[in-house]
């Protein structure tokens, strides 16, 4: 027998998780727009309910369309399984609430999406979960912030909006030496640009609203488990290693082995918190993932052109993109992100806040809105929008200036994008 090979990324993007429908022969993934599923008989019903047979009970917990999406992202990331959630925020909450309860602690990068910062800073403390924020460029700071009750280390692969590149292998090593998992928000990279599990991360999530779906049409999240973290090595994770009264004293780590975390997240978190994804949304995200490799290549190509253009423009004070030699994480980006450092970047405009306002209002192709990862190019002023709840000190700590502009580069002709930017830059300096 010849040495076997796994299907490659582009093939998995199109096929993973799906077989043509056995009843109709439908080639596309059917949208199973149903709340529930008919059991064969009472024995079958009891067995599916009790985890003795595979199958679907209720679409809050599993759905056949969502299952294709979950398998597909697990395959692309190299994970053991995934759960589709109502949003990226729901995925993050599901992970944290599966791992810990009141009295626990998270060590997180301080350079985060504003929504994640809100959850960790303001909302979870009401439920007894505290977070210490550290500089993502200082791997040792993650270790220094650990406490006996820490249960998770968390960061984004590309910080928001400063594009700090996380040294995932170094931070994973620190987390693992403390017996803790590392979770990555990999939204900006997608598995095409970076696969966190290949570098030591244990859990990851995506806002699938962004590049995975790719067209700005849906809200969705995906939580993925590598299946590699050994939950039984300590007594830190009783939700996985002790009997669960909510499921007949089931011990997830014993019954499900490497799939313990993702199974508990589904059997408890999806069941009880209920932040599920609709089948129609799952279908649209699947459609997006089918072209993910093609789109990401073009997103990155366009981004590189715009970065070079802006970096040479007299109205621009600085451009923040890890592929630029003066970016503090340039070498790390070359090592971890050889296919590209994403399609979202920031720049500081000469003239501060007022110039920023004139710039944004003069753009015609770039859409001014709170999102990234659309096929269309987007622009926003973080200090007044995504990060508006942060005070001046927090903004400074997160590397955000008042004149900072964030672009999400789409798939338009790059010449048209540069012409749009040129026009707006001229207006900004009047």
């Amino acid at each position, binding site marked *: *027998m010849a*040495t*076997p*090979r*796994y*299907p490659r990324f582009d*093939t*998995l993007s199109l*096929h*993973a*998780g*799906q*077989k043509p429908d056995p009843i109709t022969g439908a080639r596309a993934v059917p949208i199973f727009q149903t709340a529930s599923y008919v059991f064969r008989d009472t024995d079958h019903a009891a*067995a599916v309910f*009790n*985890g*003795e*047979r*595979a*199958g*679907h009970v209720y679409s809050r917990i*599993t*759905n*056949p369309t*969502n*299952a*294709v999406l*979950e*398998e*597909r992202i*697990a*395959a692309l990331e*190299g*994970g*053991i*399984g*995934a*759960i*589709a959630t109502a949003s990226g925020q729901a995925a993050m909450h599901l992970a944290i609430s599966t791992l810990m309860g009141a009295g626990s602690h998270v060590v997180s990068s301080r350079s985060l999406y504003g929504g994640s910062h809100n959850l960790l800073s303001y909302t979870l403390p009401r439920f007894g979960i505290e977070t210490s924020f550290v500089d993502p460029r200082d791997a040792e700071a993650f270790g220094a912030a650990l406490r006996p009750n820490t249960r998770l280390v968390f960061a984004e692969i590309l910080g928001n909006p400063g594009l700090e590149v996380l040294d995932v292998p170094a931070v994973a090593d620190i987390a693992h030496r403390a017996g803790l998992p590392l979770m990555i928000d990999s939204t900006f990279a997608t598995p095409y640009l970076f696969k966190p599990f290949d570098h030591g991360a244990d859990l990851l999530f995506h806002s699938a609203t962004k590049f995975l779906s790719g067209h700005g049409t849906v809200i969705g999240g995906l939580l993925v488990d590598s*299946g*590699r973290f050994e939950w*039984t090595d300590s007594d830190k994770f009783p939700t996985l290693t002790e*009997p669960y009264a909510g499921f*007949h*004293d*089931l*011990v997830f780590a*014993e*019954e*499900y*082995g*490497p*799939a313990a975390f*993702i199974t508990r997240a*589904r059997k408890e978190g999806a069941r009880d918190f209920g932040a599920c994804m609709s089948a129609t949304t799952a279908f649209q995200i699947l459609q997006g993932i089918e072209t993910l490799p093609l789109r990401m290549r073009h997103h990155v190509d366009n981004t590189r052109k715009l970065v070079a253009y802006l970096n040479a423009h007299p109205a621009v004070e600085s451009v923040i993109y890890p592929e630029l030699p003066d970016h503090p994480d340039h070498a790390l980006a070359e090592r971890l992100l050889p296919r590209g450092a994403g399609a979202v970047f920031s720049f500081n405009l000469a003239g501060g806040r007022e110039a920023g306002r004139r710039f944004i209002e003069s753009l015609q192709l770039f859409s001014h809105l709170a999102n990234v990862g659309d096929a269309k190019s987007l622009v926003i002023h973080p200090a007044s929008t995504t990060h508006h709840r942060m005070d001046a000190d927090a903004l400074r700590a997160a590397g955000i200036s008042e004149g900072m502009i964030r672009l999400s580069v789409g798939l338009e002709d790059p010449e048209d994008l540069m012409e749009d930017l040129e026009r707006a830059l001229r207006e900004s300096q009047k």
Partner: protein
Amino acid sequence: MRISVDNKRVYAYTGSRALTPDQETVVFVHGAGLDHSVWLLQSRYFAHHGRNVLAVDLPEHGQSEGPALPDIETMAAWVKNLLVALDIQRASVVGHSMGALVALETGAKASERVERLALLGISAPMPVNDALLQAARANDHQAYDMINLWGHNRSVQLGGNPVPGLWMSAQTLRLLERSRPGVLYRDLRACTAYQRGLESAQQLQGPVLILLARQDRMTPPVAAEPLIRRIRDKQRIVLENCGHQMLSEKPDSVLDALKDFLS
């Protein structure tokens, strides 16, 4: 549950249920480099339907203490010792792949303790591909990849897991990656070295289910025929569109076959 067998700590999954003396017992024996969790769906079903279940971790597998046992005959003696340690007079033994060889040998050598035998994904002899053996000997990850890719029906490499949301290919891989260094090699070497299968088959006394898979590239159905011919009281089932890893590829079909056979 955790018990002691041959003065070593052993883990056996029971479905979170205490063993009950008046219930029949089913012992599940996993394949090379794996652990009890491969039987999750099937063992959980029987544990919640009036059976004592012992889905064991063989020595140095899963949560059981080492060292790994050197050959199939010793593994079979270990299964008998497990039953003796728990004072179980008779049990049905279900095994997959290497576990099926262990079940076969247990049935031949400890017939007084065995009610019924279910042999899943079996051939006798069970020669292991030399490239796989060499990779396993070197603790090379490629050994896990070979088992994963050859062990599954080709279509499974693109997904379609009956268990929603899990990527089957990674499920098998993660279990193999958890095996301790050298364990997979010792298991595979035990499979290759076991030559008593046909002789043992002739000694079996009770009913035997042989469950095979049409697309099995590791123990193809044709390779089981010499064994099947020597078993007196037998039932042979071949699962369609299924590879060697039938427990994850066709969990319901396997459960249905076991339910019918063990009833």
